[in-house]
């Protein structure tokens, strides 16, 4: 096979969050949690006259990587720079806690974080900051429970700020 991209393939950096998940996991294995049809959207953005995203800028779920079960989360870097808000953060924290709770009980033994974040949304700053702290706690708890947490980053470190750097450091 050539190293060149085929016409139907997408470069990881250019891909959307959903395309990244589809490209990494075994074909057809992804099952989304709290999908866009549930419209779990930010309650804060409309107060600033901003339209939201049906998945609040993050896709979470489970799937298979080379036949083995994993949890996976992907941030959509083009929606508000992939920044954390209340719902966005809660979806990620919930995924990590599920990984912790199911560890040793036949649950997935790894969580993949496809990070692409500019930090925290200014429009929901306190909720966003809190959710980053909760995420770091949840990463550490999952790792203590024996779950591998692996972060793949597609964001520029200069843009993503201290919060995202600490996420990367926690996941290692």
């Amino acid at each position, binding site marked *: 096979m050539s190293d060149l991209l085929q016409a139907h393939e997408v470069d990881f950096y250019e891909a*959307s969050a959903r395309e990244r998940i589809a490209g990494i996991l075994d074909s057809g294995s992804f099952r989304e949690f709290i*999908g866009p*049809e549930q419209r779990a959207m930010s309650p804060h953005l409309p107060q600033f006259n*901003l339209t*939201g995203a*049906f*998945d609040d800028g993050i896709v979470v779920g489970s799937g298979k990587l080379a036949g083995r079960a994993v949890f996976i989360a992907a941030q959509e870097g*083009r929606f508000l720079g992939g920044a954390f808000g209340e719902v966005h953060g809660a979806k990620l924290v919930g995924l990590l806690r599920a990984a912790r709770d199911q560890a040793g009980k036949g649950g997935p033994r790894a969580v993949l974080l496809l990070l692409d974040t500019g930090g925290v949304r200014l429009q929901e700053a306190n909720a966003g900051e809190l959710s980053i702290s909760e995420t770091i706690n949840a990463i550490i708890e999952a790792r203590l429970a024996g779950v591998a947490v692996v972060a793949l980053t597609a964001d520029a470190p200069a843009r993503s700020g201290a919060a995202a750097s600490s996420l990367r450091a926690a996941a290692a």
Partner: protein
Amino acid sequence: MERFEIRGTAARRVPGDRRQAITGVNASGNLEVLVERVLPGNECVVEVATTITGFRDLWQAVIEDFFERCAPGGLRFSINDGGARPDVVTLRLMQGARLMEGGE
């Protein structure tokens, strides 16, 4: 921000059994479209939430043209718009309808 919906009746019901599809991202000059097979018969509707106000007539023209060209009967389209131009709106709506038929 402005919210409105535009309803229509299509010439046919979209084939296939896919329940939902999503395409695009709510970013500057772009939009996301969530498509769901939830309407009876040949009804179709587009629900719009846009940051840009005052262009409802233009949205109506673009969406009615889409209804006529693609005949998306049975589908509800929900849009989060970040200021996309009319051609991008048409493209995303057509991508959404195509996905529901099982195409790429």
